[in-house]
C-alpha cells in the first residue's frame, strides 16, 4: 500500500528561523517533526520567487529549464513531465491549496482538483479560514493514497501577525511570531494524519530578509509598516480599476519609507550585511541571490523514515521529489533531471554534493540586472547574465554573511565555478512548446492570411 504524502510549503521560511539555537519562535510541532525525521539544514532554493521555484520542485529540474525563467515569467513548459502527473499515473489522488499565481502559471495543472477548490488568492490567511478549509479537506480524504500540497502564504511580506500571537513570547519579530502562529496550524494538520502511513515533507519555496536587527542591544526594526499591511490586507478585494491606484499608493509609501530609512541608516556605522538586511527586499537589485533568500528548511518525517538525523550537507529543492518517489517505492520520473534522491544521506552514507544552480528573479523591471551563479557548501559564485566580467565570489565557510568578494584573490575558483555554470547552461531545453518558433510563426501567419485574418 502506498503512503499518503502531505507536502507543506511555508512561503518565505528561512532555514535559520526553522531550526537554530538563536531562533525565537515557538514551534513545538515543527520541532517534533525534526525530532522524529530527517532535517536538512543547508537546502538551497535556486530562485527566490514562488512560481519558478515551485515549478522547479515539481519537475526536479533547475528553474531556467522549466520555461518559467529567462527574461520573462513564462508558464511551466507543458512538455516537461511533472511529479504530480507521475503520482497521479501511479494511483495518487492529488490535491492542492495554493495561491492563484501558481495555477495561472501552470504549476497546479496536473492536480486532480478543479482550480476552483485548489487555489485561493494570495491574501487568504490560515487564520481567515484557510486553516479550517484545510482541516475539512484532510477530514474528507477517504480515498488513498493521496498527495496534498499545502502552500502557506502567511509568512509572505508584509506579515500581519494574528492577535493571539502578537506577543514577544512568540518571537522577537513579526516574522518570528508568525512562524509560531503557523506552527499552531501545522499541529492541527498533523493531528489529522497518521504518520505511519503518511510521508510529511515540509519546506519553503525561498527565504526572506527579516528587516530587523539587534545592534548594540538596540533593535532596529524595519519590518512592514502599517500602511503596507493595510494595502496587503485589502488585496484584490477592491474593484479591478483601483488596482492601479493601489499599486501607486504602495510605491509611494515605499519611496517615503526608503528615503527616511536611508537617512537614518547613514548615521549608523553598519556592516555590509547589516546594511543589506535593513535595506533590501527579495525584489531588490542583486538582493535575491544571497543566502537570506535562498537557504530554506527541508524536513522528511513519517512513513519510511526509520531514524532521525540532522544533515548539514548542501542539497537542493530539486532533490525533494526524487527522494519522495524513492521513499514511496516509485521509479523516478525520468533520468533527465537535476535532482537526486537524498536517501543515502538519511543513514549517513556518501552522496556527492551537487553544485546548485542559482539565479535572480526574472522580469522585475527592465532596469534590473539579472544574475545567475553556482553555490556549493564552500563557495558562491554569482555573475551578471549578460556580462561575464561582472561577478562576485564568496567563501561561505569563512564568510557566511557574504560580505567579502574574494574573486580577485581566487581566479582559479572563479574559472572552476564558471565552468560548472556553463555545463548547466548547455542543458537548457531549447524547444519551448509554449512559444511559437520562427518557422511555426511564419506558418501560422501564412495560414491566417489565407483565411483573411491578417
Amino acid at each position, binding site marked *: 500500500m502506498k503512503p499518503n504524502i502531505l507536502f507543506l510549503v511555508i512561503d518565505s521560511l528561512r532555514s535559520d528561523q526553522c531550526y537554530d539555537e538563536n531562533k525565537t519562535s515557538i514551534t513545538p510541532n515543527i520541532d517534533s517533526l525534526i525530532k522524529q525525521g530527517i532535517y536538512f539544514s543547508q537546502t538551497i532554493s535556486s530562485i527566490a520567487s514562488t512560481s519558478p521555484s515551485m515549478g522547479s520542485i515539481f519537475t526536479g529540474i533547475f528553474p531556467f529549464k522549466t520555461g518559467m525563467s529567462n527574461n520573462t515569467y513564462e508558464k511551466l513548459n*507543458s*512538455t516537461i513531465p511533472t511529479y504530480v502527473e507521475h503520482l497521479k*499515473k501511479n494511483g495518487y489522488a492529488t490535491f492542492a491549496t495554493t495561491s*492563484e499565481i501558481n495555477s*495561472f502559471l501552470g504549476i497546479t*495543472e496536473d492536480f*486532480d482538483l*478543479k*482550480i*476552483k477548490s485548489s487555489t485561493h488568492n494570495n491574501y487568504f490567511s490560515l487564520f481567515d479560514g484557510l486553516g479550517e478549509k484545510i482541516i475539512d479537506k484532510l477530514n474528507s480524504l477517504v480515498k488513498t493514497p493521496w498527495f496534498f500540497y499545502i502552500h502557506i502564504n502567511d509568512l509572505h511580506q508584509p506579515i500581519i501577525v494574528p492577535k493571539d500571537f502578537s506577543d514577544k513570547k512568540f518571537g522577537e519579530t513579526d516574522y518570528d511570531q508568525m512562524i509560531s502562529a503557523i506552527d499552531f496550524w501545522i499541529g492541527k494538520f498533523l493531528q489529522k494524519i497518521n504518520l505511519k502511513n503518511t510521508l510529511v515533507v515540509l519546506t519553503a519555496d525561498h527565504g526572506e530578509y527579516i528587516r530587523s536587527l539587534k545592534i548594540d542591544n538596540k533593535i532596529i526594526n524595519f519590518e512592514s509598516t502599517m500602511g503596507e499591511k493595510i494595502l496587503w490586507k485589502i488585496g484584490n478585494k477592491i474593484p*479591478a*480599476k483601483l*488596482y492601479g491606484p493601489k499599486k501607486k499608493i504602495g510605491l509611494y509609501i515605499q519611496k517615503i519609507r526608503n528615503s527616511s530609512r536611508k537617512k537614518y541608516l547613514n548615521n549608523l556605522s553598519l556592516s555590509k550585511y547589516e546594511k543589506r538586511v535593513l535595506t533590501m527586499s527579495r525584489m531588490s537589485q542583486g538582493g535575491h541571490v544571497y543566502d537570506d533568500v535562498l537557504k530554506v528548511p527541508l524536513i522528511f518525517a513519517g512513513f519510511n523514515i526509520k531514524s532521525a538525523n540532522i544533515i548539514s550537507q548542501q542539497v537542493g529543492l530539486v532533490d525533494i521529489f526524487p527522494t519522495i518517489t524513492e521513499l514511496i517505492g516509485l521509479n523516478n520520473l525520468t533520468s533527465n533531471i537535476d535532482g537526486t534522491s537524498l536517501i543515502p544521506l538519511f543513514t549517513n552514507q556518501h552522496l556527492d554534493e551537487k553544485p546548485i544552480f542559482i539565479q535572480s528573479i526574472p522580469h522585475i523591471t527592465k532596469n534590473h540586472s539579472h544574475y545567475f551563479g553556482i553555490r556549493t557548501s564552500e563557495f558562491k559564485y554569482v555573475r551578471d547574465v549578460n556580462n561575464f566580467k561582472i561577478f562576485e565570489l564568496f567563501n561561505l565557510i569563512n564568510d557566511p554573511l557574504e560580505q567579502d568578494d574574494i574573486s580577485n584573490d581566487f581566479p582559479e575558483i572563479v574559472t572552476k565555478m564558471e565552468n560548472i555554470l556553463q555545463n548547466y547552461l548547455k542543458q537548457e531545453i531549447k524547444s519551448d*512548446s*509554449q512559444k*511559437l518558433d520562427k518557422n*511555426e*510563426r511564419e*506558418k*501560422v501567419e501564412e*495560414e*491566417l492570411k*489565407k*483565411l*483573411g*485574418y*491578417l
Partner: protein
Amino acid sequence: MNRKNIIILMIDGGRLDRALSSSTFNKLKNNSAFFSQSITYGPHTIAAMHAVFSGSYGNRTGTNSYWSTFKFKKNKFKTLTEYLHDLEYHTLADVVNELVIPKQGFDNFLIHDELKDDLTLRHCNLLEEMKKYNSEEENFFLYLQYSNIHTGIMNEVLKVYDNFSPEYFSNKEKNEQRYDKLFKDAENYLEIILQKIRTLELNKNSLILVMSDHGISVGEKVGERAYGAFCYDYTLRTFTYFLYPEIHPIEIKQQIRTIDFMPTILEYLNIPISEKFEKIDGESLIPLILENPIEEKFAFSETGNPLKDKRPPEEPNIKSIRSSKWKLIFNEYDGSKELYGLESDPYEENNLIGKNLKIEEILWKEIQNYL
C-alpha cells in the same frame, strides 16, 4: 465492425437564428436531438474546434487563440479522432486550412481550396469513399467543414472593412442580406449532403452531427465586423443536431457546451475515457438526449480582441462565463466587466454591472477559475 460511424458536418460560421428559421434545418429536428443553446468555447474556428475535439477548454489544452494550433498539448489531451483511430476507424477530415482542427489521429487530412473547390461535389465524393470502407466492414469517422460562409465573409467583409468601419455598421440591412445569401448556400449544401447520406444508407449506421463552430456578426456591435473579437451570443451561441438511427426526437433547450460533444460521442459508442490523459472539461449529454435531467453547467468562452490592431493577439484578452440566464464578460485588456440578463436582454444591450446583483458576484467568482 460493430460500432456506428461518425460523420460531423460542420457549418463554419452558421448562426443559430438563421438555423431556427430555416426549413432545411428545422427538418433535422424531426429525427435528431437538437441542442438550441450550444455554447462554443471560442468564437473562431481554431479555438472552437480544438475544444470540441479534445472535450476541453483551450485555456487547458493550449489552443486558445488563432495562433495556438501548434501549442495544443497533444501528450496531455486525447482527441476524439485518436479515440476512434485506436479502434481502427478510418479517419478523414476535409477542412479549409491545416490549423483549424487537431491533426492527431487522422488517416487522411485533406485541405480544400475554399475559393475554387465545389464543396458539395467534393464532400459527396468523400461520402462515397467512406461507403466503400464501410462496405468492407470498416468503421469510419468523417469530418467535413463547410467553409463557404467564411469565404463570402472573408471576401466581402474581412478584406473590405475593419472592426470599426462606419460604412459597415451603418448598413445592417446589407450585412443581413449578405449573410442570408451565404446561409442559403449552406442550406443547399446541407440538403444535398444529407440526401447523399440517405442514398448511401449511411444514416442507418452512423451518428451524424450537424453543428456550427461559431456565429458571425451582421453588425450588432461596433468593434466586431465578423467574429473572434467579442464574446456576445451572436457568435457564442451555435446550433447542434445529433442524428442517429434509433433516436427519439427531442429539443434540448438548456445550455450545453460544445466541449460536451466529444464525451457524448464516446459514451454513445461505449468508449471509455482514458485516465492516462488529462481529465476533460466536457461531460456526456446522453442523459439529456434520453430525457434524464443533468445540471446545467456554466459555459466558459474566451477570445483575443485585436482592438485597433490588425493582428489578433496571441493570448485571449476577453473572457466570458455564461448560464442560460446570465452572462458576465471580463474585458481583461482594460479590466472592465459586462453583465447581461439573457432572458430579458438576449441582444446584450443593457449592461447590469455594478447594480449590486448577487449574480455578478457569483459569476465573477466562477470566472476566476479560468483566469
